[in-house]
C-alpha cells in the first residue's frame, strides 16, 4: 500500500513543480545560459555576468510591474510612456551626488505613481477597458516625455550611472541586488491581504466581490504599484544608457508582455507572478547573447526570437496542463 501513496506524492510534487511557471522559465533560462556559457569562453567572468544583469534589469522591472496588472486580467500599455518619462526626467532634472540620486528616484517614482493612479481610476473605478485607457495614457506620457526633452541628450548623473551598473564590493552586481530586493518585496506583498486579493480578483472578480474583497481598490493599487515599477525601470535604463531619450520606452511596449507571458503569467488572470515575469525578461535579454554566440544570421534573428518566444510559452503551458491533470 505504501508504493502507490509515495507514487501519488511524487506525482503531485511533480505536478506542483511543473505547474509552477516560475520554475519552468528558470529552467529555460538555465538551459539558454548553458548554451551561452559553452559557446562563449568568458561567459562566467565578472564583467560578463554584470553585463547580463545590467541589460536585463530595466526590462525585468517593467515586466514585474506589468505582471501585477496582468494578474488582474488587465493590460497596461502605459509602460512605454512611463519608462520614457522617467528616463528624460533623470537626464534633465537631476544633479550629481547621492542625495540628488535619491531625489531623482523620488521624482520618477512619484511620476510613475501618478500615471498608475490615473490608470487605476480609469480602469477600476470608471471601468474603462484597460487596453484602451492605458493606450491613451501611454500616448499622453510619451508626449510629456517629448516636451521634457525634444531630442536624445541630457546627462544622467555619473553617480547614478556608475553606482547602479557596478558591482557591490566588486562581487555582486548592484543590478542583481536591486532585482533581489524587488523579489523580496513581492514575496512579502503576496502574503498581505492585498496580495491574496490580487489573485482572487484575477481569478474571478465577481466571486471575489461576493467574498467581500474590495475589488476596485485591489485593482487600483495594482495599477499604482505597476506605475512605480515602470518608473524604476526607467531609472535603471537611465543608469544603463547614461542619457535621456524621449523614445526610450518604445521597445518596452511589446517586450514587456512577451516577458510576462514567458514568465508563466496567464493573460486570463489570477495565475503567475512577478518573479516569473522578471525571469522572462532575463531570458529575453539572454537570448540576444545566445543568438549572437550561436552565429545566427542577422536577417533571421527575428525568426529565432519569435520561435523561442512561442516555444517558451508552449513549454510552460504544456507542463501546466500536465500538472493540472489531463484536461485543462
Amino acid at each position, binding site marked *: 500500500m505504501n508504493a502507490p501513496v509515495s507514487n501519488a506524492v511524487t506525482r503531485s510534487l511533480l505536478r506542483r513543480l511543473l505547474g509552477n511557471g516560475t520554475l519552468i522559465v528558470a529552467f529555460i533560462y538555465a538551459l539558454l545560459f548553458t548554451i551561452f556559457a559553452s559557446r562563449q569562453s568568458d561567459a562566467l567572468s565578472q564583467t560578463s555576468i554584470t553585463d547580463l544583469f545590467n541589460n536585463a534589469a530595466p526590462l525585468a522591472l517593467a515586466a514585474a510591474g506589468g505582471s501585477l496588472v496582468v494578474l*488582474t*486580467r*488587465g*493590460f497596461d500599455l502605459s509602460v512605454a510612456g512611463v519608462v520614457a518619462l522617467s528616463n528624460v526626467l533623470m537626464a534633465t532634472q537631476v544633479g550629481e551626488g547621492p542625495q540628488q540620486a535619491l531625489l531623482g528616484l523620488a521624482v520618477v517614482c512619484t511620476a510613475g505613481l501618478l500615471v498608475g493612479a490615473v490608470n487605476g481610476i*480609469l*480602469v477600476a473605478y*470608471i*471601468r*474603462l*477597458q*484597460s*487596453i*484602451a*485607457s492605458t*493606450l*491613451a*495614457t*501611454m*500616448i*499622453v*506620457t*510619451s*508626449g*510629456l516625455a*517629448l*516636451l*521634457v526633452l*525634444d531630442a536624445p541628450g541630457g546627462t544622467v548623473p555619473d553617480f547614478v550611472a556608475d553606482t547602479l551598473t557596478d558591482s557591490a564590493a566588486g562581487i555582486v552586481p548592484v543590478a542583481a541586488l536591486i532585482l533581489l530586493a524587488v523579489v523580496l518585496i513581492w514575496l512579502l506583498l503576496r502574503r498581505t491581504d492585498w496580495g491574496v486579493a490580487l489573485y482572487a480578483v484575477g*481569478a*474571478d*472578480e*465577481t*466571486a471575489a*466581490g461576493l467574498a467581500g474583497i474590495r475589488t476596485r481598490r485591489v485593482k487600483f493599487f495594482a495599477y499604482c504599484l505597476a506605475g512605480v515599477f515602470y518608473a524604476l525601470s526607467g531609472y535603471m535604463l537611465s543608469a544603463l544608457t547614461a542619457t535621456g531619450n524621449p523614445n526610450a520606452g518604445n521597445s518596452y511596449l*511589446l517586450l514587456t*508582455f*512577451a516577458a510576462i*507571458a*514567458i514568465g508563466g503569467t*496567464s*493573460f*486570463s*488572470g*489570477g495565475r503567475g507572478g512577478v518573479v516569473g515575469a522578471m525571469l522572462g525578461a532575463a531570458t529575453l535579454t539572454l537570448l540576444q547573447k545566445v543568438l549572437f554566440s550561436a552565429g545566427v*544570421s542577422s*536577417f*533571421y*534573428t*527575428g*525568426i*529565432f*526570437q*519569435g*520561435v523561442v*518566444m*512561442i516555444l517558451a*510559452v*508552449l513549454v510552460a*503551458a504544456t507542463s501546466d*496542463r500536465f500538472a493540472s491533470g489531463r484536461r485543462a
Partner: protein
Amino acid sequence: MSPPADTRGLRRAGLGSDVWNAIALFGLTALLIIASRWISSGFGGWEQTKAILVLSSFVVVVAFGQQLVILTGGLDLSIASVMTIGGVLTFNFVGASPTALIWGVPLILLVTAAIGGLNGIGVVWLRVPPFIMTLAMGIIVYGATLGITGGTPRGQASPALSALFTASVLDVPLVIYFMLAITICGSVVQLGTGFGRRLYAVGTNPAAAYIAGLPVRWLTFLTYAISGASAGLAGILMFGYAGGATLTMGQAYQLPSIAAVVVGGTSILGGSGLYIGAVGGALLLTTFSTVISSLGIAEGWRTVIYGLVILLALLVLREELYLWAGQLVARPVPLRQPGEPAAKPDA
C-alpha cells in the same frame, strides 16, 4: 475587467448601445470636420473629407479582421508585419502587370490568410495566448520579409492599384467606394450570416458555445485567418497608394487598428461590438490626427492632446450613456439570442 453583474443585465437588454455608439462616432466625425473650419480655412470642406476618407481606408480594412479577432476575445499584434509582407509581395511579384494582378492578388491574400491561420493554429490548438502568438508571429514574419528581400524590396509600381487612389468617379476617389463596399460586406458578414452571429456566441462564452455544438475552434481559427487576409489587403492598398513597398510600411497601423476597434465600442473581452463601430472609430481617429497635425504646436503637445482625445472619446462613449439614450428613445433591437449568457466564464 469584466463588468459587474448589473450592467451585464442591462447590456443584454439593449445591444442597441453598439448602434448608438457607431452613430455617435460618425456624428462626432462630421461635427469635427465642420468645426475644424475654425482651425484652418482649408478645412471643413469636401477636399478635407476626401483626404480623411482616403487616409482612413487602410485602418478601415485592417480593422475588419482585428475587430473579428477581438470579438472572439483575442488580439492580433501581427498585422503590421502581415501588412508589410502583403505590400512587399505585391511589389515584387505583381508589379506593373495587370494580368499578374488578377492571379497575384488572390494568391497574396491566400498567403497572408495562411499566416493568420498559423496564428489561429497557435491560439486554438496549441493554446498560446493570442497576445504572444501574434506578437511572435509578427516578429517572425518581419524577419522572413527582411531575409527574403535582403532589406531592399524591389519591384515595380502598379498603375492599376494606384488608380484606386488617383482615379475618381463623381469627384469621389475609387478607394472610397471600395471602402464603402468593404464596410457593407463586413457588416453583412457580421450581422447577416450565421458565421457572424456565432462569433458573438463564441466571444461571449466559449464554453457555452461549445456545449451548444458550435465549432468554437474552427470559428476562432477563421477569425485569425480573416485578420491575416485583411491585413494583407491593406498592405496591397498601401502599395497602391505609395507606388512602392518598404519594410516599415505597416508599422504605423498596429496601434491604430486596435484603437479604432476599441474606440469603436468593441470590448476587448470579446462578445460585443460592431464592425461599423470600428469604421467610425477609424474615421474619428484619422480626423483627429489630421486636425491636430495642423495645429502649429510642438509635437509633444500634439501627442498629449491626441492621447487626451482618445481618453475623452472613451469617457464620452461609455455604454451607460447609450443605455440611457436608448431608454429615452425606447425599444433597442436585441441582436443577441435571448437566454444566451452574457457573462464570460472566468478562467
